[in-house]
C-alpha cells in the first residue's frame, strides 16, 4: 500500500520561500498571484496492513514538526 503525506507550514507561519516564488511569478509577468505557500510531498511505500494510525504516528514524530507544520495523509 502507499501513502502520500502533504506537509505545509501552518497558517500564520511566514513562508519566505513561498514569498520569493510569488515575487518571481510577478516579475515574470504572471498577474494576480496573491499568495504562494510551499510545502513537501512525501510518498511512503508501506507493507500491507500498515494502519493509518501508524502513519499518523510517523507524521507526529518525524515527518512534520507540528510546532510549525500541518500535515495531511492520503492513503492509496
Amino acid at each position: 500500500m502507499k501513502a502520500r503525506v502533504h506537509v505545509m507550514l501552518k497558517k500564520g507561519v511566514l513562508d519566505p520561500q513561498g514569498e520569493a516564488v510569488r515575487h518571481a511569478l510577478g516579475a515574470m509577468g504572471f498577474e494576480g498571484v496573491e499568495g504562494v505557500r510551499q510545502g513537501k510531498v512525501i510518498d511512503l511505500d508501506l507493507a500491507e496492513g500498515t494502519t493509518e494510525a501508524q502513519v499518523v504516528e510517523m507524521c507526529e514524530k518525524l515527518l512534520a514538526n507540528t510546532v510549525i507544520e500541518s500535515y495531511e495523509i492520503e492513503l492509496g
Partner: protein
Amino acid sequence: MRAAVVVFPGSNCDRDLAVAFQREGFAVDMVWHKETALPDGVDIVGVPGGFSYGDYLRCGAIAAQSPICQAVLAHTGRGGYALGVCNGFQVLTETGILPGALLRNAGLKYICKTVGLRVETTDSAFTGGYAKGQEIAIPIAHHDGNYFADEATLETLRGDDRIAFTYTDNPNGSVGDIAGILSDNRRVLGMMPHPERAADPGHGGTDGAAFFRALGGLLAPA
C-alpha cells in the same frame, strides 16, 4: 568538570566547542551519535553546529531521533545541563527539549558574519558572566536561524525571563529578535550564534569567552 560533545554525521563545530570547554578546564568526551548512553559523570552536554544528516527533511529532525539524543533527553530530564549552538539549537527544538522551531532565514540567504547580541538575562549558568543589557559581538553562520514560536510560548518565555540573547539588528527574521533561549529549569540553552567562535584571541573576538568561563566557574564545585 566533564563535558560531552555530541558528534553527528555532518557536525562541523564539534571540535571548536570541545576546545572552548577545554579552555575553561572541562574534560571533554566526544560522543558519536550511535552511542546510546553518555559517559558517566557528564556535567554538561554540548550539541554542536553543523549540518547533521545533511539537514535532510528539516534541520535537526533526523538527529533528534538518533540514539544519543535519547540519552541527551534523559540527561536533561534529570536536570542535567545542555548547550545547543546553531544546528545544536535546531536539534534541541526538534527533540522538544526547547520550545519553538528554526525556520529558513527571512531573506532566504545563508548568513555568515559577526552580529551584535544583547544579553537579556544573567540568571543562568551560561549568561552569569555578562551584565544584563550588555552588547556582545558573536558570529553567526546559518541558513535556518529564523526563530519561531507561537504567541503563547513567547509570552511564557518573556514572563519567565527565558530569553537569553536577542539580536541588536535582527539578521534572519527571528520573532522578537530572539537569538537564544533557556529551558524552564534554566539549565538548557539553545542559541544560533556561535560563542565558541569568539572564545580565543585568535578568533578575532573574545566576547564568547565569558560564556564558557561562567559555565566553568559554576560547574567547578559540582
